[in-house]
């Protein structure tokens, strides 16, 4: 029995224009529900979910930020400590796609350079209103070297996959880092605090 209730801890921050469905994605993933008429997020929202991947407990700290411009400064302050960013846009809203380069600039400016960014096109349940083609988005994400996924928070399409894939990538990233710098310094995503590391391994 270990002191910790998890093996890995990752901080994930959701960003993107207002109204693209960030909160709904998080809700769907953490609580399994789709709240109709979800209001605009104020400042930041926080959720936690522990998942098991290959027998390892991964705790995901999810920070859901407000898309509104007026909260930009406080949301930016959350980028810094993020291990992964989920950059969301609405496939039925050209404008939210066109803002992506701006968001990438913000990431560049405020997030750590080791951060993993995933591009998510949400609301694929509204296929008939689609304004941004999948191909275009794929091309864009490829050019930016991002992982791309289309989801529907409403229909729960790809939501689990999004977070679980991300968790997997974060784990492998963390492992790689452990190999690269084999020092006992705290690593991004390594959830165990140093003093208990030995006893965990002992058991």
């Amino acid at each position, binding site marked *: 029995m270990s002191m910790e209730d998890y093996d890995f801890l990752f901080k994930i921050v959701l960003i993107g224009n207002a109204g693209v469905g960030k909160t709904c994605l998080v809700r769907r993933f953490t609580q399994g529900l789709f709240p109709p008429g979800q209001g605009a997020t*104020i400042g930041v929202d926080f959720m936690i979910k522990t998942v098991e991947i290959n027998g390892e407990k991964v705790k995901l700290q999810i920070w859901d930020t407000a898309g509104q411009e007026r909260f930009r400064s406080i949301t930016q302050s959350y980028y810094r400590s993020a291990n992964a960013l989920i950059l969301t846009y609405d496939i039925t809203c050209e404008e939210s796609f066109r803002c992506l380069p701006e968001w990438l600039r913000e990431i560049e400016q405020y997030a750590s350079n080791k951060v993993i960014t995933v591009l998510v096109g949400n609301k694929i349940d509204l296929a008939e209103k689609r304004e941004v083609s999948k191909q275009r988005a794929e091309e864009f994400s490829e050019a930016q070297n991002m992982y791309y996924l289309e989801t529907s928070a409403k229909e729960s399409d790809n939501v689990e996959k999004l977070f679980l894939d991300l968790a997997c990538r974060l784990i492998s990233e963390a492992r790689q880092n452990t190999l690269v710098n084999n020092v006992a310094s705290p690593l991004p995503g390594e959830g165990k605090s140093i003093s208990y590391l*030995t*006893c965990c391994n002992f058991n």
Partner: protein
Amino acid sequence: MDCRAAVDHHVCNGVCGCCGALRPRYKRLVDNIFPEDPEDGLVKTNMEKLTFYALSAPEKLDRIGAYLSERLIRDVGRHRYGYVCIAMEALDQLLMACHCQSINLFVESFLKMVAKLLESEKPNLQILGTNSFVKFANIEEDTPSYHRSYDFFVSRFSEMCHSSHDELEIRTKIRTSGIKGLQGVVRKTVNDELQANIWDPQHMDKIVPSLLFNLQHAEEAESRSPSPLQATEKEKESPTELAERCLRELLGRAAYGNIKNAIKPVLIHLDNHSLWEPKTFAIRCFKIIMYSIQPQHSHLVIQQLLGHLDANSKSAATVRAGIVEVLSEAAVIAASGSVGPTVLEVFNTLLRQLRLSIDYELTGSYDCAVISAQIIKEHEERMFQEAVIKTTGSFASTLPTYQRSEVMLFIMSKVPLPSLHHALDAGKAGENRNRLTQIMLLKSLLQVSTGFQCSNMLTALPSSFLDRLLSAALMEDADLRLFVLEILISFIDRHGNRPKFSTISTINDISVLKLKVDKCSRQDTVFMKKHSQQLYRHIYLTSKEESNVQPHYEALYSMLALISIELANEEVVVDLIRLVLAVQEIAQINEDNLPVYNRCALYALGAAYLNLISQLTTVPAFCQHIHEVLETRQKEAPYLLPEDVFVETPRLTKSLDHLVPEVFFRQSKISEVLGGSGYNSDRLSTPYIPQLTDEDRLSKRKSIGETISLQVEVESRNSPEKEERAPAEEITYETLKKAIVDSVAVEEQERERRRLVVEKFQKAPFEEIAAHCGARASLLQSKLNQIFEITIRPPPSPSGTITAAYGQPQNHSIPVYEMKFPDLCVY
């Protein structure tokens, strides 16, 4: 130790649950505090045992903590919230009971538990966790803790501050908890240099906006009406007040180096939430900041605000106006400390913004290159300009006297004036811009000079300042002239007599005015010796202007009256009487073809002033003469008295051609009656003639030829009538030459000047001397310009061609040599 811990765990893992009796003692003690039924609450007696054990064996504390937290995490996972609360209570009690040095071992597991509670979605657990954290934060530890991170706490508490829980009551509770938690983090970390630096932007950018967010929703919270019973308690707990208290505490602890990181998020928050307009919240914020910050740092806040103003140069005028208003409020609070070491920089920024605004207003866009990206609202720019001027005033009011005069000098130096060596922007647009700039800067100057009480006119109005100011007095623009007069008046008036002369009238007994008069000091006498002629000349020339309206005459009257009260000795009185008589002559001879109104106004002005001065001198015969003339006017020509002229609809006459000589004040008569009372009758009987200078001509934009002929005309007109003219007053080549080589006077002046310089360098502060040198540098600049001017132009031949040379538009681009020396060269 690690080894032992490992063994413990091993034992625990292997045996745990099989045989309770073999468990270590601390585990048994911990287990015993939990009742069978969580409803029963903490088992008090057993808790006492545990506490006693912990106190007697503090080395066990870490294991007690670890075990407790293990249980708690398990209970949270199994939704046994009753036990969670009990565990937390036990933790709190242990924390309180144990003394500082041993706490350290325990804190890690404690914080883990708090974090676990904060991770929960259940508001109750979040609040429970926060409360424990706050208790912990209030314990002062004396052992440093090296690797303790509060990142998660700051993030989570900030998030809680923004809670949007559906139920209002719960939302308020969560937000309140969030604020308390932040307060706790601040308390815990602020004084501990080894810990995470709470002042780092990554933390400040979360903490400050979260507090402001709650602060700004005061109205929202107040609008709901809680039942009166709850009101008091709610008020105590209102997030708004709590946020304010927390913000004050935070800022009060900010050291010099941290101010910037703490204030920047405030500015950004106000930007993002568009809170500069309406500015009530912004002002409230900065009031809180200014009152809670350590006073020696307040100038840093001002600097940041100024920097922010600069950064917002291209924002809407309302935003800029908001920032400036906030600056003005903040400056007053910071009082003497507001400006800090960079006095001129503050004013420079304000004036720069003023000029930018004028440009925006005139060009109609923020950037010439961008084609009307944003439409500029003229009235908003105007409002902004007024705000800047007001702010300039409130800054200046916080300064000590010597710095104030320095600032006035600085503002004056920024006023674009036509001078011999520096051409202004030509063209219609340039002229317009100059005029607006002049008006705005003079307004600022007026704002700065009001309420300015200098003990020494000589230092308050150095010649470099006075010269520029007076040359502005001769501008064609009536508004500008009025500003200059008002500025001069506010300098001269040091006893608050100004309002008593705001209207022109002939009062029978001036004692009703209750004038406050001090004896003219020695320095003032020196000042008048040095500058009186200049002042007179400008009063004389200003009164000649055709575009004068009532306020101008009123200002002239105030000025004459105030000089007589503040700065007069016998000689000055004599000169002033001569001056007023000369002004009467302007109206009488009317060579400038002034309209009837202006002439009547000049007569009335003279009457009012002579009435005043006669009563001030208290020479009976003088009063008698004045009285007689006034009576005659009353009967024959009431339109020459202020009571008829300076009213809403002046009662004027059609023609002033056939006036009887008795309505005029006579110089010969006055000199006779005053001479009898010991005044210098020789001087008195000499009519006053102003000496025109190059400067006058230039600012009037009249050609030299014209002015010379004018002068000759004045002379020729005057000479046949007044035989008693002293030769020295005749303007001839000889006089001019004599004036130049008048070595005695020059020597005396030189001596005085030297004395002043020595005194200045002995007494003045460094900045002042530097500023003085700066002024000299500009003198050098102008000399250089002059030299270059000469070298690139053919020397003007006498008479006619000069006119052409001055008249020609000088809109060539600025060559290298005309570039200003940077101010830094001074140091």
